[in-house]
């Protein structure tokens, strides 16, 4: 059985596959544990990225706040 790569699954979940390919991929995901696990990993990556973005934003804000206080 051919498995989908993470890149292909990104195309699938981001609606960048043709309709036909998407139908085939959805059918495959229903039956293939490896690919459905890979898809779940991508979803977990999204959560990780949310945390990362939030951390960057919070650290940037605290820096800006400090600079603003200094300027005042």
């Amino acid at each position: 059985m051919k498995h989908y790569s993470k890149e292909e699954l990104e195309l699938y979940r981001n609606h960048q596959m043709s309709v036909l390919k998407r139908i085939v991929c959805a059918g495959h995901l229903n039956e293939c544990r490896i690919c459905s696990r890979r898809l779940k990993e991508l979803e977990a990556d999204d959560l990780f990225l949310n945390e990362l973005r939030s951390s960057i934003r919070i650290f940037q804000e605290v820096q800006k706040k400090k600079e603003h206080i200094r300027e005042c």
Partner: protein
Amino acid sequence: MAFTTKKSLLRKVRAGDEISWNEFYQTYKPLILLCGLDCSLTATENEELVQQVMMEIFQKDILKNYDLDKVPDHIVFQFDPSRGRFRHYLKKIIRNHAIKLYHKRHDMLSLGEMEEGEAPAVDDWDNQWEKEWKRHLLNMALFELKTEVQPETFVAFEMYALQHKPVKDVAEFLHMSVSAVYTAKSRCIADLKKIIANLEER
């Protein structure tokens, strides 16, 4: 600050090497400020917290001679690994000074004049610390990542995964395929997780 400096700092702390004031100050100042905010310190108290933590760590009477942002590089700190983990050492120092500052303010005010916000209880503070430390690690890991992957890989990751730019725009801008942008994202996430695991051991 150069990204390489951040990387070397983290390694040097663990190795017990000398760390310059500036490296340490730039890297840990945001973490100290966030901890101060968690303890409901005012902006002025938070400034004082940073100064006091830095003074205790560097054990030098530098404040009288320098602006905190302009301390020369020969002022160094050396962490003794036999003290245990650096994160616990730092946590204790920040917490002690934050509590002192909080109590100092409350000693000066009568109960009727108490301001908004309360210093968190020990358990809350521990939880907050873990959150702030994790944020700190994520930021540090990102700096390390930048030194470890190809520049175009990092830019693709930054634009697509961090700045949420449309994948097609990123691919076009960087003259790469959409699939290559996704590969860059996967690669960077995997590397970041490894870096974080490595940092957590320190």
